[in-house]
């Protein structure tokens, strides 16, 4: 019961967050006039198409202009462009919530569609592959290293790795990615410069998979390196904190072997705060993915951001901001569930 209530609260909060960030995006768009510009371009596009189709039937250019103008006014009214931006707000929210994200100005999907949802959905899996793999590797690795360090507190190894972990906090992952490319791709030709597949794409499913894995290696290593250090450090601190608790002394006095004490009494108890930190680390992972994809020209949503910025494609940027928030909020919800499962105390 307690857990259900907590989950319900979390779910509502997160949905609220989604709405608020969406509203924020729309208000900023409206207040800066970008929204009008975006709608205007949609109208222009439709008018252009209309003119082309009408040009076949209406020969008289003056008559054509008149009809087009009338159609244009109808369109302006249809989209509500004759009213101030805030009157369109609910409509926009509803539209974006339905993932009806409009058309891109210049960017196209790989299959040639200009619909933003097509473009984004095509790239979504690529990003998810990258982020989840990196997150899984770094959490497992971080947990392992952190626990190892905690059992060797004060040793040279501990101090060394702790310092390296702390230092990695100061390393921008994208820059590390660049260094990787310069050394491993440019200098030694071990890995590709970027992209997701070779050109031409190797034939055969197995070959293609290996090709993608080969291309994904450096981005994944980059993303992992970005988070594994701070991870290990957080785990170490949490484990050490828990190891000072009285019940650990009790467990030792009970004659439990050290590995049991570590697994059952320390890590198990330290897990919820570690999960909390994983949640906090998620933002970093998402940001890291955008930058890493940019560096490695990985055709995910992050690289799309970069391309959209240079193509000045507002629609795509709005859509991406929304989808990233959606993904992030979803990931957080999963972790909240995990937290509730791990810690009996919050169930009340």
């Amino acid at each position, binding site marked *: 019961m307690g857990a259900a209530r907590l989950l319900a609260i979390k779910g509502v*909060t*997160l949905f*609220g*967050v989604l709405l*608020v*960030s969406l509203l*924020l*995006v729309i208000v*900023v*768009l409206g207040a*800066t006039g*970008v929204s009008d510009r975006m709608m205007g371009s949609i109208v222009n596009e439709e008018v252009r198409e209309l003119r082309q189709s009408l040009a076949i039937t209406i020969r008289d250019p003056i008559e054509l202009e008149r009809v087009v103008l009338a159609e244009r006014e109808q369109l302006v009214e249809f989209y509500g462009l004759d009213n101030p931006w805030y009157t369109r707000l609910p409509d926009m929210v509803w539209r974006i919530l339905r993932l009806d994200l409009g058309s891109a100005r210049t960017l196209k999907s790989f299959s040639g569609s200009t619909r933003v949802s097509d473009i984004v959905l095509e790239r979504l899996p690529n990003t998810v592959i990258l982020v989840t793999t990196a997150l899984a590797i770094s959490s497992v690795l971080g947990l392992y290293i952190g626990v190892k360090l905690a059992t060797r*507190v*004060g040793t040279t190894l501990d101090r060394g790795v702790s*310092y390296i972990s*702390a*230092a990695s*906090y*100061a*390393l*921008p992952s*994208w*820059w590390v990615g*660049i*260094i990787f*490319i*310069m050394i491993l791709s*440019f*200098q030694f030709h071990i890995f590709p*410069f970027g992209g997701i597949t070779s050109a031409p794409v190797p034939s055969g499913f197995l070959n293609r998979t290996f090709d993608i894995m080969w291309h994904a290696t450096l981005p994944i290593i980059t993303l992992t390196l970005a988070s594994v250090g701070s991870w290990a450090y957080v785990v170490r*601190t949490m484990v*050490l*904190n828990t*190891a*000072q608790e009285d019940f650990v002394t009790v467990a030792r006095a009970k004659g439990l072997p050290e590995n049991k004490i570590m697994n059952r009494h320390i890590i198990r108890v330290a897990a919820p705060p570690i999960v909390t930190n994983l949640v*906090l680390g*998620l*933002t970093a992972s*998402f*940001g890291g993915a*955008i*930058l890493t994809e*940019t*560096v490695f020209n990985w055709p995910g949503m992050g690289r799309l*951001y*970069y391309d959209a*910025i*240079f193509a000045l494609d*507002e629609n795509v*940027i*709005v859509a*991406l*901001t929304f989808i*990233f*928030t959606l993904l*992030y*909020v979803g990931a*957080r919800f999963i972790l909240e569930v995990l937290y509730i499962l791990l810690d009996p105390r919050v169930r009340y």
Partner: protein
Amino acid sequence: MEERTRNLFKELLSSGSGKVGIAFIIALIIISLGVIIIYPPDFGLKYWSNPVLWADNPRAAPPAWTNLFSSYNQAETVIFETNIPTERIPGVSITKVLYTFNLNHKADEPPSFISMTVGNIKYNNRPPVLIVNIERPDGNKIELYRLIVPGPLPNEVTPFARFSETPFRIQLSGNHEVVSAVSNFLKQEFDVSISNQDLLLSGVDIAVFGTPQDDGKFDVLMGVYKIQVDAFLYNEDDSIGSVKFVAGGSVHGFMGTDTLGRDLSIGLLFGFPVALFIGLVASSITTVIGTSLGIISGYIGGKTDTSIQRAADIFTNIPLLPILIFLSFIVGPNLFIIILILIIFSWPGLTILIRSMVLQIRSGQLVESSITLGASRLRIMLRHIFPQTAPFVFAQMIFFTPSAILAEAALSFLGLGDPSLPTWGQILEYGFRNGGIYVGYWWWILPPGILIVITAMTFVLIALGMEPIINPRLKRGH
């Protein structure tokens, strides 16, 4: 309080990382202050982004010191500039003014280009004429170029001033007049005929600074080149302001140049104060807001608490970078807006942490005892609760500083940096966008990254040095 501050620093200085961190931050501050004093305030737009200023620098040239590691000696940029003639020979109607430069060329390659710039010429009736000659170590002399200063315009009154606002620059290497002069020279001296077109393609520099070989190639001719600019003035009062001759190298300065010829060391130095500014302003304001809201939320409780917590919930649940990208894209790249957004999205983390600390402090009896004594809410928050969170808050502030610096760098890297304030992130972005990593412009890509890392690391080191103060339990464990 003073005693605690003193202890804090004592503890900080007793740890190795603390010492290094403090030393680094002092260095960073000194460099930044120097830059603020020396650099013009509108450095970004007026200087850094002005290609004219950088025209005499070689493009994408590695640092000069790379010669030390290579047997092949690359040319360094040599600049001669003067406003005092070497010699002045007065004549009856013509005064001849000579400018002589001795270029000792020792590199295994010719200069990457040669150029001349003249500035601020004044004349009274006939426009002066300038002739550029070069005398090679083998004794041959080439007249490269002849510049006739533009004549008077209708209705213009004497004295006629030319090139006073912007100096006049001639890229000698790519000039047709120079090409034909060199072509003639080759024909006469070495009996080698190369068409003007081919010479333009292969570059005149190697012909000027080399000797043709049988295989059609040139050997670099080392030695002292005497470059002479002869100016013929037709009036006593005519004058030439300045003459500049540049033999471009393929290595440049301490940090090299980018593809616009900008000296990277100048841009990188400017990054110091900007980075510190971003880091410190964002972190201190965030800390002040985060801490006060945390204390208020935890102490006052009730509806105030709920609303602060809801707001915090929302802001922590929005991924920062996408929103940053979105806002700086829409609103336009502006450093202050970036800092503002960083603050708006960063206070909640601290607020949530401080709130839980305050709740813990409240669960003790200090707050209740203070209420019984009649202390006001403000007094309890400031005098009793804040001091207990202070060391933690201070550490958080230091720890947040590098995140702000890194966030700005990331945003700049995505092309959303504020162009009026060039940062390390922007230099990196320009390098990346121009394919620097695919052709190996390491001097362009590495240093800005390293500087970002060093600056961020400085604060991380200080934070590490403070850890035993913040988390005494860990200290006990040792």
